[in-house]
């Protein structure tokens, strides 16, 4: 049960202090997010109240819109608990049962499938179930009270954001950009990281030093380089299309040079490049921890370097790749500066799009929509960490943190 040797065990006082400290930290860590989520389901009068009890119980929302009953709450809590168990226990077990599929396909597939299943269960199945049970309970005396609404609850802000303000467009743009960034960044990065881990060459060393300096460059510096080029890419790239030697090639793709401003594809390449330094450093330290004998054996058997990488290294590299991929995901998904400057209203991702709700902060409902949008942006990240937290810790322990 307790794996720490007797002599190394902490004194009771120290353990109580550590427990208290962690309790305080957990409250501090989760409170702003939990509170924002609670606010997003209330009518503005309740959500923006200075009294925390009003925010939690939402009497005005209950009067005006309706609410949830004790029964709904119980169902909700059970649902959340099941989701938690499913993500932390069920998914890894499921993943272990289908080892034939490579992790890079398996894990994202599982995560997406799980999100849909959880969303369906939580927002469609549970309310219907709870309603049915409630109908039954109402016929009984006393127990019927359990089915009466007690806490105010409304989903109207989400409806306004996702349907009226068409936030789903921004969601799709975000998905496009993040999926693009993660796949390209990992395919390019694993090759480079592997080679850098196995090479003793001076060039490899200089490449790593250069990457470290590039990692330090603030994104605004790079973006000031991109903006003029992106805005007038038609004129700047024109020679490539007009010159006979290269023109035939580029004209296969389009008749004239593209305007890069507002192109998700251009943003993907930019974010991949910005992310490369961190990716190759991290993957390099993972590959250094994979024994060199593995690919040497493959080489002796007559594989080329690439075949050795493909057959001997690929099957064992997934923990590191998943951890690195998660960092790439966070960078692409969370970016504000680059996307705000280089994308137009059509192709805007979710994070820069939220400022449109903030800047129109005139009516109370505008602020509520901003809050609902913020929660919508956070929810996918929440699921992601729920599913991948074991891989993150395992991945970091395996390598990246050797400095």
């Amino acid at each position, binding site marked *: 049960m307790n794996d720490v*040797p007797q002599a*190394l065990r*902490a004194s009771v006082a*120290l353990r109580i202090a*550590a427990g208290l400290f*962690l309790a305080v*930290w*957990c409250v501090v*860590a989760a409170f*702003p*997010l939990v*509170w*924002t989520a609670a606010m997003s389901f209330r009518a503005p009068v309740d959500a*923006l109240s*200075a*009294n*925390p009890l009003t925010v939690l119980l939402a009497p005005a929302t209950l009067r005006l819109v309706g609410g949830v009953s004790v029964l709904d709450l119980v169902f909700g809590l059970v649902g959340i608990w099941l989701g938690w168990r499913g993500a932390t226990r069920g998914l890894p077990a499921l993943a272990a049962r289908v080892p034939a599929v490579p992790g890079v396909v398996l894990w994202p597939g599982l995560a997406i499938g799980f999100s849909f299943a959880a969303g369906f269960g939580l927002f469609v199945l549970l309310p219907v179930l709870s309603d049915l049970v409630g109908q039954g309970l109402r016929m009984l005396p006393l127990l019927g009270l359990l089915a009466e609404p007690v806490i105010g609850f409304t989903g109207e802000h989400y409806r306004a954001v996702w349907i009226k303000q068409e936030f789903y467009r921004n969601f799709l743009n975000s998905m496009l950009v993040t999926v693009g960034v993660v796949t390209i960044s990992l395919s390019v990065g694993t*090759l*480079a990281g*592997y*080679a*850098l881990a196995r*090479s*003793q*060459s001076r*060039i490899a060393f200089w490449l790593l*030093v*250069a990457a470290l300096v*590039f990692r*330090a*460059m*603030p*994104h*605004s*510096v*790079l973006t*000031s*380089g991109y*903006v003029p080029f992106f805005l007038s890419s038609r004129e700047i790239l024109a020679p490539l299309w007009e010159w006979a030697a290269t023109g035939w090639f580029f004209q296969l793709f389009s008749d004239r040079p593209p305007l890069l401003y507002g192109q998700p594809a251009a943003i993907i*390449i930019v974010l991949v*490049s910005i992310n*490369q330094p961190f990716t*190759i450093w991290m993957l390099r330290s993972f590959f250094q921890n994979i024994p060199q004998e593995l690919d040497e054996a493959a080489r002796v058997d007559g594989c080329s370097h690439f075949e050795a990488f493909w057959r001997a290294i690929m099957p064992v590299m997934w923990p590191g790749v998943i951890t690195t991929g998660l960092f790439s995901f966070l960078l692409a998904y*969370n970016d*504000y*500066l680059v996307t705000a*400057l280089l994308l137009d209203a059509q192709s805007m991702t979710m994070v820069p799009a*939220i400022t449109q709700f903030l800047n129109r902060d005139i009516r109370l409902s505008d602020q509520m929509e*901003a809050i609902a949008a*913020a929660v919508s942006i956070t929810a996918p*990240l*929440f699921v*992601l*960490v729920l599913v991948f937290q*074991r891989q993150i*810790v395992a991945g*970091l*322990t395996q390598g990246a*943190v050797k*400095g």
Partner: protein
Amino acid sequence: MRLKTLLMFTAPSAVLMLVFIFVPLISVAVQSLFSTTLVREQVKVETCTPGFLAQVCTTAERSQVVLRADGKPVTRTVFTGLDSYRSVLEVEKLAAAFASGGQGWTAVAGLDFWRALRFTLTFTFITLPLVVGLGMLIALAVNNMLRSVRGPLVFISLLPFIVTPVIGALSIRWLFVGDGILTALLRATIDPSISMFAQGWTIELLMLVYRVWHVAPFAFIVFYAGLQTVDQDTLESAVIDGASRFERLRFVVIPHLMPLIVFVALIHMMDAYRVFEEVVGFAAEAHVISLQWLTFNFLTPDFTGNRSISRASASSMLTMVGIVLLLIPLLVRVWRDHKPRS
């Protein structure tokens, strides 16, 4: 591994970094020395109104943008040397501030670049020890807990790190803005007239709190992973030698984690120096701005649709010089650790 293989494997990554990081840096350096403006011309416009007996005519000179045949404005790029730097640094106002009769530092605090620099540097150096310290404390505490509760603890601790920076800043702002519940709490306990967004220093305090809240989990997860690899035998022999808990931490655990501490410090300095999302999330631009925000603001089109590219480039170059200077000590250390052994 032969050189050719190395080059083949690293080529895609190296080309991307060359084209999208190195080339933009060069082009920013060049842009900062030139200025592109719309060509304007003076046009005499005669407007006549019918009057009694004769028309009344007035001629006025107006300046208007010259258009090309295809309707786009003609632009002219001229070499301006260090003019954009001078305009970003506001050299004249700086000189006036320190001339006799000037207001000295109080006047400097009103100049955009200098207040951005002041905030960015204090922000970086105040958050650095707090992030490393808090991350270490959480890692040690979680590591002392029973294995069964560690999973949920790690999950909750990671939340502030994964949340989108702008959203994290907003979620803290909503607790304090207007009659937010935490402002209400402060008013009830400390001072009934507190308002967190009315003056610069309280906003700055919130920004510091937000950043430590956001990054400490990253330090925690790295240190926690490192703690899993501490050699148990060394710890036990330290116990036999009579080392107290604190001495074991000081002489066994911390030295083992030292490369990780340098790693976290390096990453955190790079990231804290580019503080930006806080300014957006807390809507702080009237009181506190950062260097990245300054460049961002130059790049954002103003109400006539112009972007001041050359000033943005100049402030970018200054920002870049700053981070390189800051990182030199840490870079030298990394250099020594990773130098090829040939």
